[in-house]
């Protein structure tokens, strides 16, 4: 079978990733991803090796921390897939009281399979609202189920789903989520619709959501289906697809609940959201430190997320300008400007808030005007942007990616990675040193021998297992540390290797220093360009918001509003089509909607 072709002229599908004797592909007995698929992204990147951005730039914390949603964010790839494959979706059951308490079921028909999103809603006192994952009560608790839900399963879900982390799921359940209503706006929206009015844009402010989620568990957590348990032709055999289908329906629930409560309150006077508002609200999300361990424990996943973006960027930068391209890019710049101009001026330190992005986008438009008629205009625009700093460069990256027309079948495949690896114990110290220098040479820039480098350790709280940081001088790890101290571990491993004979096998080093085993395994697993953020999670200066923002942007979230150094609020699916709108005419330009400007009664 011939591999599919990709836009951009890649011809390197057969290229193999170079491996040194240090590492071996893990036994096929546990690898479920064909080697060709696992290596496909590396082949694509190798074919563009002179044009992709170096990891030394792309993996800098401040660059990762300036990422924005793009054409290849998971919310958008999910909806494009839904359109391309003719999915249909809708609500099949709603049993709510006047306050919106009860049960709702949505169904997605993906052609070959159906999925149900079952959601239980209640109300809790405003004082019990919290964005933290540790909350023990939620107003919304839902589960995405493979197939239809019969009475027996529904009865079980009623018990287990509201329990969240304490509940027990089974492989029929694909994702588990929960959240709360927006305290500020849910009641206001109900009141307005009940009175027959559309919301006042000035009252809504920049509220981009009705409901705010805090987690989308999946992949074997609490007994749910493992990702590897999806067969090759399953619609959710793409990372995060199940979670984003659940998130899309979670967002739909917000609209349905408000309109239901408005009808209950206003009777015949009540109206639904009109055309300007019916897509404006997305789903809010509050994100804490839980994202950080994932990013630092999955280097090949991180490489795929960054690598896909870099591959697409390289294609666009060398693109020969077509007559319509300039207008398309100008349109996207204008759309982004309008969106952010209708946003808030809230303090979003260390990020730029919406209003601060307006002059930045004016500069981008001006720069495009200067280079559009020159040679290699897209490359010229990017190079200009990089000189302005990460907020500008990553904004321009996302805008440029709107011009990329990659094959979604291929890009879905590129996000699949095989994470299995194993270190060869017979590799010599010299070979390991060489690999360490090649892959982690940047560690020398982090002052890892200085006390501030080791100020924190990462811990899991006993309250719903929320990851936290703890100061080492106030609490000793005593074997409870989460191994995301990658920079420190690799650095110390390298120090130990300095005193060993070059020809001895690394197994001998581990026999004397078993504490370095994890470092060796990480060194082997870290065999991709973009797998390692150039950062130390244990340092005093470490800023979790940066890697969090990168991950959230890859998910498709925007409107980054940090609440402190460790957590932030975001919005996703703002502007996205509603369930009933899904169809062949649904387009992919729904992102960055401007806030409605007029009030209609």
């Amino acid at each position, binding site marked *: 079978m011939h591999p599919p072709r990709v836009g951009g002229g890649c011809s390197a599908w057969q290229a193999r990733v170079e491996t040194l004797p240090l590492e*071996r*592909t*893990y*036994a*096929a*007995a*546990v*690898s*479920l991803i064909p080697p060709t698929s696992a290596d496909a992204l590396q082949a694509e990147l190798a074919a563009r090796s002179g044009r992709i951005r170096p990891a030394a730039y792309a993996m800098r914390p401040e660059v990762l921390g300036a990422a924005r949603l793009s054409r290849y964010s998971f919310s958008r790839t999910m909806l494009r897939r839904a359109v391309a494959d003719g999915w249909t979706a809708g609500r099949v059951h709603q049993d709510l009281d006047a306050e919106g308490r009860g049960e709702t079921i949505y169904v997605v028909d993906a052609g070959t399979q159906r999925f149900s999103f079952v959601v239980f809603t209640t109300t809790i006192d405003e004082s019990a609202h919290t964005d933290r994952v*540790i909350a023990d009560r939620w107003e919304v608790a839902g589960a995405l189920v493979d197939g239809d839900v019969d009475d027996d399963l529904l009865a*079980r879900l009623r018990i*287990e789903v509201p329990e969240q982390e304490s509940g*027990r*799921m*089974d*492989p029929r359940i694909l994702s588990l989520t929960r959240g709360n209503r927006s305290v500020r706006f849910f009641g206001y929206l109900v009141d307005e619709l009940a009175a027959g009015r559309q919301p006042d844009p000035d009252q809504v402010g920049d509220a981009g959501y009705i409901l705010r989620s805090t987690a989308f568990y999946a*992949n*074997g*957590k*609490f*007994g*749910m*289906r*493992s*990702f*590897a*348990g*999806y*067969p090759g032709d399953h619609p959710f055999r793409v990372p995060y697809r199940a979670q984003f289908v659940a998130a899309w329906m979670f967002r739909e629930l917000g609209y349905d609940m408000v309109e239901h409560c408005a009808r209950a309150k206003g009777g015949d006077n009540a109206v639904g959201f009109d055309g300007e508002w019916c897509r404006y609200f997305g789903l809010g999300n509050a994100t804490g430190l839980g994202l950080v361990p994932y990013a630092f424990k999955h280097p090949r996943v991180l490489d795929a997320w960054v690598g896909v973006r870099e591959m697409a960027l390289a294609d666009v930068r060398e693109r020969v300008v077509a007559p319509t391209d300039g207008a398309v890019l100008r349109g996207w710049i204008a759309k982004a400007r309008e969106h952010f101009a209708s946003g808030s001026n809230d303090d979003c330190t260390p990020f730029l808030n919406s209003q601060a992005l307006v002059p930045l986008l004016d500069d981008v438009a001006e720069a495009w005007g200067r280079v559009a008629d020159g040679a290699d205009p897209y490359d010229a625009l990017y190079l200009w942007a990089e000189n302005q700093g990460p907020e500008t460069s990553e904004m321009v990256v996302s805008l440029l990616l709107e011009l990329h027309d990659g094959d979604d079948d291929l890009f879905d495949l590129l996000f699949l990675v095989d994470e299995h690896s*194993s270190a*060869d*114990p*017979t590799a010599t110290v010299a070979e390991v040193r060489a690999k360490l220098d090649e892959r982690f040479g940047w560690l020398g820039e982090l002052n890892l021998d200085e006390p501030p480098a080791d100020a924190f350790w990462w*811990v*899991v*709280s*006993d*309250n719903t*297992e*929320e990851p*936290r940081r*703890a100061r080492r001088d*106030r*609490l000793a790890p005593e*074997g*409870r*540390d989460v*191994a995301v101290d990658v920079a420190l571990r690799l650095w110390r491993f390298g120090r130990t290797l300095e005193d060993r004979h070059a020809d001895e*096998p690394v*197994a001998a080093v*581990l*026999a004397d220093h*078993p*504490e*370095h*085993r*994890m*470092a*060796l*395994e990480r060194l082997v697993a870290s065999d991709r360009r973009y797998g390692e953020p150039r950062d130390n999670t244990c340092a005093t200066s470490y800023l979790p918001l940066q890697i969090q923002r990168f991950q959230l942007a890859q998910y498709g979230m925007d409107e980054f509003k940090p609440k402190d150094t460790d957590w932030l609020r975001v919005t996703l699916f703002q502007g996205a089509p509603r369930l009933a709108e899904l169809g062949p005419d649904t387009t992919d330009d729904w992102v960055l909607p401007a806030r409605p400007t007029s009030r209609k009664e």
Partner: protein
Amino acid sequence: MTDGRLQVLVAPREIHDLVFRCARVAGLDAGAADRAGRNVTAAEVHLGGAVETFASVLGDPQRLATEFGAGPDVLVGAEVEARATGSGVARFGVPTPLAALASAVADIGGRGLGVDGIQAGATAATTVDGLQVTGSPSPSDGTAAARAARDGLAVDRVAFDALIAAARPFLVAESILDEIED
């Protein structure tokens, strides 16, 4: 949701995560604990009974360290010898359950060598005094792993609950974390 009174349906990653935490609580370093998690999970998937076998050593940290921490190192030593001479023998010193070695055996197979000495019909609880690393690996496929990922694994409920309880000290009380942040 349970599958019968005495078993609970779990995902493979749950076994790995719990074994990792239990091993850390018992004193293993992060690398050895992660390896123990992979071995027990692979043994449960391919042989069955691994969760019970691991649970049986939870009350004996020394035994846990010897069998699940050091056992795979002995096998690795035999692999190093086999690479140099064509064959290497792992002598474990104490009877070591396959629950402690299953992933390590697969790793060696992935690097092109076979492991002899595992009897047909062995389970995760089957112990070995020694194994020989030599020749070519046995052919294997991903059927069992795929099935486990798709359908979950039915494991002994008492043993699984024992792992949950033993893993609990890996967590730090929220109240303590809040206090040291002040």
